[in-house]
Structures are given as C-alpha cells and as structure tokens.
C-alpha cells in the first residue's frame, strides 16, 4: 500500500513536487526580499533623489563588488567553511592587476586574467590548507588574510598603484546600453553560480559536504578535491571582484577590503545561508548585499550621519535575520 502511494507520488507528483520546491525556495528568500522591497518603497517616498536613473545606476555599481564576493563567500559557507581572506585577496588581486598594467603595459583583459589568477592561487592555498593540512577554515583563511595583506604591502611598498590609463576604469565605471558594466558582470556571476549550485553535480556535492562531510566522504565523493575546487572558484570570484574594485577607483589600493569579510558574510546570512553548512542560495545572498547597500545609500540621501548609519545597519541586520528565523520556525516548527 505504502509502496503504491510512494510511486504515485513520484509519477503524478513530479510537476507538483517541482512546483512545491520552487514555492518553498521562493518563500525562503521571502523575508529578505520583502525587506528589500519595503526599504525600496520607503526610500522612494523619503527622498526625491532615490528613484532616479543615476542613483539606481550608482547603487548597482557600488554593490557589484560586494555581491560578487558575497556569492563566493556563500559557496564557501555552504560547505560549512568561511573565508576571512576575501578582503586581503581582493586587494592583492586588484593591486596585481593594476601593477601589470602600469609596469608591464598589459591590456585590461590580460590584467583581469592576472587578478583572477591571483585570486585562484589564494583560493587554492586556502583549499589546500583546509583539505590537506586540515586546518579549520576560520584559521586557514585568517592566516591567508594576514599573509595576503602583508604581501600587498610588501609588493606596493604601502603606496597605491597609480598612473593607470583611463581604459583601466572600464570594468568598474564603464557601461553597456546604459547599464553599468559591473552590474552586468554581477548578474552573470550570480546566475552562473546559482546554476552551478542548484543544477550540477558539483553543486550537489557542495551542499552534501557542508551537510555531513563524513557522509559525503563515505558516499565516494572526493571531498578533498571538491572542497578545494570550491575555495579556488571562490578565489576566482574574489580576484574578479578585486579587479573591479581597483578599476572603480582607477588604482591599486593596498588597503582595499579591510573588514570586507564581515559585509559579505552578513549578506550571505541575511540571505538565508547557515554558518553551520548545508544551506544557502545565491539569490538570497544577492538580496542581502543589496539590502545593506540600500541602507547605506538611503542614509546619505536622508542626511543621516555615519554614526547613526552604523546603528541603523546593525538594527536592519538584526531585523532581517530575526524575521527570517521567525518565518522558518512558523513554517517548519522543527523540534
């Protein structure tokens, strides 16, 4: 009897299942998205400057780097890891990209490749530290954060990399049919990573490793290799983000990204990722990143000083996660 039910469920219910899955996923981004919409509407009324093409353009460009790096962070968090080195590595990548342009005359594309390469190397280092040396991710990436920042300073002699051609700004300040180039890249990255996580075997493994590493190992997943891939891929995105950031300010900044890790982790968690692994989606993370950016933008438009901004950002982070937790409890009321 139960057998019949189960089968019927699978056949007739395939579409049904699919729908339910979609809805439940949509719901899980519900709170953060609601918060985003509410804030958006509120700001539109509160400030005449908010709902202008220029401002939305700026918000998009300002959030691009954070969103890309937050996507990278989300992948790592899903595996039950954490990457504290994102700020240092982004600075390292941006500085490296700027230096090869200034000193070696690389074209922009090649410089971007160098930046991405630097990010990938740092990611590989993180991955090997976690999988081969078996150092917990928090410590492995804390070390990379420190070492990376030191290297940036050594490379640059603690002076920004200036004297770049105007073309260097393309990535960060360019636009395509009126849309900031950085936003286009962000959308591509977000869609790509979301697809990877939800539709491919690699994504499945990522969730599995974060949910129960031992089970993943016993299921024959090469956890060392796959975990390393996750860190490398995260590094690639961080490198790209660092390059865009450098392009935005038309220079390689050795101090870029200090405490960036907190912002991107906050974006991921606001978007529903769990620091205990196995949970998290890119849509949520992107919403989280924009939520934080909107608060910052709105605060300036409404003439709120930086001090009060910090208080407000804290309150919003609390509120977003509180309502999300509350909704989940209502929905699942798990033991």
């Amino acid at each position, binding site marked *: 009897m139960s057998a019949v039910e189960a089968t019927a469920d*699978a056949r007739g219910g395939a579409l049904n299942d699919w729908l339910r899955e979609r809805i439940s996923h949509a719901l899980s981004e519900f709170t953060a998205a609601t918060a985003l919409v509410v804030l958006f509407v509120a700001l539109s009324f509160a400030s005449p400057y908010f709902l202008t093409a220029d401002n939305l353009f700026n918000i998009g460009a300002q959030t691009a780097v954070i969103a890309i790096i937050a996507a990278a962070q989300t992948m790592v968090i899903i595996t039950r890891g954490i990457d504290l080195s994102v700020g240092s590595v982004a600075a390292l990548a941006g500085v490296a990209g700027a230096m090869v342009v200034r000193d070696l005359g690389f074209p922009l594309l090649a410089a971007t490749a160098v930046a991405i390469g630097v990010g990938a190397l740092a990611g590989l280092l993180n991955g090997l530290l976690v999988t081969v040396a078996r150092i917990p991710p928090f410590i492995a990436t804390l070390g990379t954060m420190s070492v990376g920042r030191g290297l940036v300073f050594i490379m640059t002699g603690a002076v920004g990399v200036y004297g770049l051609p105007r073309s260097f700004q393309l990535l960060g300040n360019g636009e395509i049919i009126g849309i900031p180039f950085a936003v286009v890249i962000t959308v591509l990255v977000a869609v790509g990573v979301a697809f990877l996580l939800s539709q*491919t075997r690699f994504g499945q493994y990522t*969730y599995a490793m974060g*949910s129960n590493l031992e089970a993943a190992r016993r*299921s024959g997943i*090469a956890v060392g290799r796959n975990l390393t891939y996750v860190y490398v891929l995260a590094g690639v995105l961080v490198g790209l983000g660092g390059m865009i950031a450098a392009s935005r300010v038309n220079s390689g900044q050795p101090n870029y990204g200090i405490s960036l890790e907190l912002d991107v982790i906050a974006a991921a968690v606001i978007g529903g990722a769990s620091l205990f692994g196995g949970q998290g989606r890119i849509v949520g993370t992107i919403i989280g990143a924009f939520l934080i950016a909107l608060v910052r933008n709105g605060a300036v438009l409404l003439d709120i000083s930086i001090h009060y901004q910090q208080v407000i950002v804290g309150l919003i982070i609390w509120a977003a996660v509180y309502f999300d937790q509350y909704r989940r409890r209502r929905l699942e009321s798990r033991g």
Partner: protein
Amino acid sequence: MATAATATAENDKPAAGDPPVLEARGIVKRFGHVEALRGADFTVGKGEVVALIGDNGAGKSTLIKTLSGVHAPDEGEIRVGGRPVHFATPVDARRAGVETVYQDLAVADDLSVAANLYLGREILRSGPLGRLGLLDKRAMRQGAAAALAELGVRIPRVTTPIAMLSGGQRQCVAVARAIIWATNVVILDEPTAALGVVQTGRVLDVVRRARDAGMSVVLVSHNMPQVLEIADRVEVLRLGRRAARLRADEVTTDDLVAAMTGSSGAERD
C-alpha cells in the same frame, strides 16, 4: 575462552575451493588508548550471507568500517577475491563492489531523500549538458521513489530533506542506497534496528534476493532469531577478536549468546 580466537587461526580457510570474496586477517585498530580490534579475522564467501554478531562494543562496527575503507587498520590485511587490497578511502571499497550501510547512517541531513540515494552517483543529463555535470533531477526522483517502494517505505515525498524523516525512515533510505548500488558484497550494520515489522521483512527479502543473485551479504544484528533465520554462517566477535565461526543451521540462540559473552569456549564449523 580468550584462546578461542587463536584456536580458529588454523582453519581460517573457507571450506570451498574458491578464495573468499572478502576477507580480513589479523586486523588491529586502536583509538588512542582504546584497542577496538585486537587481531580480528573475518571471511565471506561468494553468495553467502554471513552474520557478524557480538556484544555492544565488541568491535563490529569498527571492523566493518575497516572493511569498507573508512578506517585504515593499524595492522593486518584485507583481501578481496584472495588478493590483498588497500582501501585508502571508501571509494576504493566501492570500486571493489563493496557497498555499506553504516550504523551511524551516513546521510546528509540537508539534502533530499532522492539526492541522498544518488549521492556520489548522480544521474546526469544525457548529451553535452551531462558532460558539464548537469543533473537529471527528474530521473533521480523517479528512481528513488521506485527503490523506496520496493522496500515498502512510506515517505512523504522524495524531495523531503532527510532531516524531517523518522528514525526508521532514515534507516530505510540508507538501506535502499546500499542495495541499489551493491554489485559484489553488501555490508549491513544493524540495518533493521529501527525498522518496523513490515520493513524488516522487506529488507530480509532483499538480502535473500541479493544472495540468490550471487552477491555476498554481511549482516550485523543483535536480533538472534533474525540471524538464525537469514544467515548461512555466523561469525562471533568478542573483545576485538573472532571468538567463533558457526553454521547457522547447527546452532541455537543460546549457543550464539554463549559465544558472544564468552561463557562457552565451544567452537563449531
């Protein structure tokens, strides 16, 4: 009593001429100060259902984890089809066709039932998309539903995350997973402990069918009537060593209990 293990050492060879499908010799495994296995031996022949029994803490699960590549033994060797092998990871054991249901049910709580059943062996889309690693989720859902139906498991939906299942439902998923994939040996560490009467019956049916299809089965269980019902042979582990090897049709529950607790040095085979 304690000498029973050494006494068996001589007639370690199985009766038949074929080399055993899976064999452990003199396995020692230590955890810090605790010596979980102290020279354990174990043998499974082709098409045989062997029950591995022993008191709590005797070392059964540890032996099984050694046989399936989860633990590397400190001493001793493992042979498959007579040839010594070295299982560095569970993947090696799976490649040799050894599929295991662990007592601590290695399932990923956040993944769905279907995803867990296919974990590590996902069905990919056909064509170039598949080579990119794209999952065929629908095929996996249908396959999972069919496999669970065969075990008579009632599960809300195959897309439910494992975290939401009852104890028995979780175990059903783990058993189903091993049974789908086994080709050579399937090892079941207390597979029916949390199962209902009907589901237990189904698992035992599946074990019989596996044997009839030429597979070998290792079954760990504390349920002596069940052991006597299903097993061809029984191996008894005590204090990390093999204490006895018995033919199931020649012994009673009391004999088994005696062998496990060491209150009898009797040794048959």
